[in-house]
């Protein structure tokens, strides 16, 4: 075994050893740090423009500044934070460990995807600092097709980030297919892996279309090819089709990983076999498939034919089925479980409430007649945030708290962690519940000043945003303090049954496992003995039995 104190964190030292590492754990950690940095940036923009909206008059900064702030908030949060959050940061760290693999299938490609992500981020940051982008994160034509170089650079950044996402997705699909440990059958894979697998498929299949769309937009801006320009015979609605063909699946790229983490948290903190394992696993794939055929529900009022709109509306309702299957299965898992309200579980319960509200309000928006009233109002904004932030970011935080002991080897202060998690849940409601109400009353999204009627809702929302900022900061402080403390974590502090807890040290060694683990039980078999079998130990045992026989 050599040096038994060597973990992946101190196996090699120095900045260079991190920058050229091909260890999936270190790459995951670098993704995590980058994502959290951009989360801070995106959140700051949100707090700034929420401050502007505190009063009905536009008084704090100019309308142009407001437009560029909400665009930056959207672009940063979608492309730099949520999309890489669970898959690239947590997934990179956890997925190979869960499968009993020593690394992802293509470690160098993995490092390359991190560098591509950094390149895209730097381009985006430079555009933010030196340019002026106010198209919203959707870059709709025709407005976006004559906005000059800032839009070109921002789109190019999203284009580059897309490649990072494709490479990560390809890597995970191949890893899941080819690097499962002996005994790790498809139905012994943790549900986290199923969720990330479904996500990766969407990443690989949808992101290229975004790539070509953004390329067309760049060409439109630079040489005026006219594909989206009605003056030259083009069609701006085609851009919307292209964009949503990617970006609707992309919202599932964002939510499926959240659901993936949720399945782990619910099972582990109920200490119970998850209810309906196969249904949860296949519902992830079902969501991935359906996600490709619902993009038209973003365009009910963009002039597509009524028949097409009806078909899209119907297909949209289908998504509710696998999502509902998951929620009910999680709820039933809680029943008769030994529920422990640790910090990760508080985040998971936040998810349960907020995602359910977000999902159900999605049905309002998927209903054509209702959507005509609600589209482009704060109702849409609230729905989106309930799903993306109330869904994905809650479980992202939950996942960070859940795997924190494994990643760092340190245990955080449970009391303050719980307060932060519960605080975020409450603040979230304060922020976004009023947005549903004012949206239903007709408050349009993306307005910089508004009529007095909505002022009290906006004020509540802004106060909620400040609370969110405070509690997220508290959550971050709890984690940082744990690094300085000396509260060392056990190998398996949550009594989980997945390989990253049962078969690795805390923190794991450089190549994850000592010996090749062999999987004898399902990921949530709390009845089975905690096993630590490896090929070597099995060989020894078999050797002994044959001697005695």
């Amino acid at each position, binding site marked *: 075994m050599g040096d038994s104190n060597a973990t992946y964190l101190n196996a090699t030292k120095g900045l260079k050893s991190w920058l050229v590492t091909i260890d999936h754990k270190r790459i995951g950690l670098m993704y995590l740090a980058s994502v959290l940095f951009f989360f801070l940036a995106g959140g700051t923009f949100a707090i700034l423009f929420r401050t502007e909206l505190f009063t009905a008059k536009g008084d704090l900064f100019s309308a142009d500044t407001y437009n560029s702030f909400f665009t930056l908030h959207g672009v940063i949060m979608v492309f730099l934070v949520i999309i890489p959050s669970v898959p690239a940061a947590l997934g990179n760290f956890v997925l190979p460990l869960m499968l009993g693999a020593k690394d992802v299938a293509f470690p160098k490609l993995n490092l390359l995807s991190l560098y591509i992500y950094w390149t895209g981020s730097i381009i985006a940051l430079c555009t933010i600092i030196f340019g002026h982008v106010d198209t919203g994160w959707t870059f709709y034509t025709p407005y976006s097709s004559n906005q000059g170089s800032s839009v070109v650079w921002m789109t190019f950044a999203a284009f580059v980030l897309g490649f990072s996402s494709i490479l990560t997705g390809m890597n995970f699909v191949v890893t899941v297919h080819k690097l499962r440990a002996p005994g790790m059958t498809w139905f012994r894979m943790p549900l986290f892996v199923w969720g990330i697998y479904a996500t990766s498929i969407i990443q690989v299949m949808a992101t290229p279309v975004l790539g*070509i769309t953004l390329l067309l937009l760049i060409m439109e801006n630079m040489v005026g090819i006219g594909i989206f320009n009605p003056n030259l015979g083009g*069609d701006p609605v085609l851009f919307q089709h292209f964009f949503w063909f990617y970006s609707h699946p992309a919202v599932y790229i964002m939510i499926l990983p959240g659901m993936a983490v949720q399945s782990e948290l619910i099972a582990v903190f109920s200490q119970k076999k998850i209810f309906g394992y196969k249904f949860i696993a296949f519902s992830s794939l079902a969501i991935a498939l359906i996600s490709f055929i619902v993009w038209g529900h973003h365009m009910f009022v963009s002039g597509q034919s009524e028949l097409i709109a009806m078909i899209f509306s119907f297909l949209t309702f289908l998504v509710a089925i696998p999502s509902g299957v998951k929620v009910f299965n999680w709820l039933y898992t809680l029943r008769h479980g030994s529920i422990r309200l640790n910090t990760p579980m508080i985040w998971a319960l936040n998810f349960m409430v907020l995602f359910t509200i977000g999902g159900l309000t999605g049905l309002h928006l998927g209903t054509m007649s209702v959507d005509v009233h609600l589209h482009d109002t704060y109702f849409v904004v609230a729905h989106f945030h309930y799903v993306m932030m109330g869904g994905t970011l809650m479980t992202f935080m939950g996942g960070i708290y859940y795997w924190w002991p494994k990643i760092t080897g340190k245990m955080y202060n449970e009391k303050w962690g719980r307060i932060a998690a519960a605080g975020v849940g409450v603040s979230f409601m304060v922020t976004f519940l009023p947005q549903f109400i004012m949206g239903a009353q007709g408050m349009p999204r993306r307005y910089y000043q508004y009529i007095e009627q909505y002022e009290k809702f906006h004020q509540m929302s802004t106060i909620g945003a400040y609370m969110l900022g405070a509690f997220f900061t508290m959550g971050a402080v709890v984690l940082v303090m744990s690094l300085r403390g000396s509260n060392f974590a056990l190998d398996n502090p949550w009594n989980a049954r997945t390989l990253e807890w049962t078969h690795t040290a805390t923190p794991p060694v450089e190549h994850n496992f000592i010996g090749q683990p062999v999987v004898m039980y399902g990921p949530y078999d709390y009845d089975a003995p905690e096993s630590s079998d490896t090929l070597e130990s099995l060989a020894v045992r078999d050797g002994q039995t044959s001697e005695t026989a």
Partner: protein
Amino acid sequence: MGHGTVTTGKFPLGHHWGTPNQQLEAGKMGMWLFLATEVLIFGGLFCAYIVYRNLHPEVYVTAHHYLDTTMGAINTVVLLTSSLTVALAIRAAQVNDQKWLKLHLIITIVCAGAFLVIKYLEYSHKFHIGLLPGEYFTASSVNIPNPDQVQLFFGIYFLMTGLHGIHVVIGMIILGCMLYRSVRGDFGPHYFEPIELSGLYWHLVDLIWIFLFPLLYLIH
């Protein structure tokens, strides 16, 4: 980290793989997934092509007369030949025929170069008479009815063939690397994975052209 690979005989096995076969299979699967993303990237352009052909069928018929069918046909033959030779190069590696491995790779690269030269001639002719996309369309000397929308056709033409051309250039770089590694003697019956994967990529480049040629040059 230099110690990422462990050499067993001639096969460079990654530290996280159990057997060479496992690594080979994974490499192929990764390549196929990559090719799927390529098909989807071009799929977007084909989609734009279909939409505008349905909107303006007459424009397509008129505009395609300004493409040089002969040059397009020659290029098709050139690319098909290169696809054959790259396949023969893989075969040569499998039977350890080092001489023909290198020769076939060279022929493939030469064909790719020839394709680009012909494409360059076509492009420069169009640049000369102003058959350019969008705002730069200045072909007033050419008597085309409905010129407002003809530029759309050339926009799509340049995008599709241009993106394809970039893929040809990338292919030449990859095949050049393969040639370098062949000269160095990396490949043989036990290890030919990179050549095989490069071949798969090259076949896709060829395949896309086989769709582009009739769709752009042979419209009725």
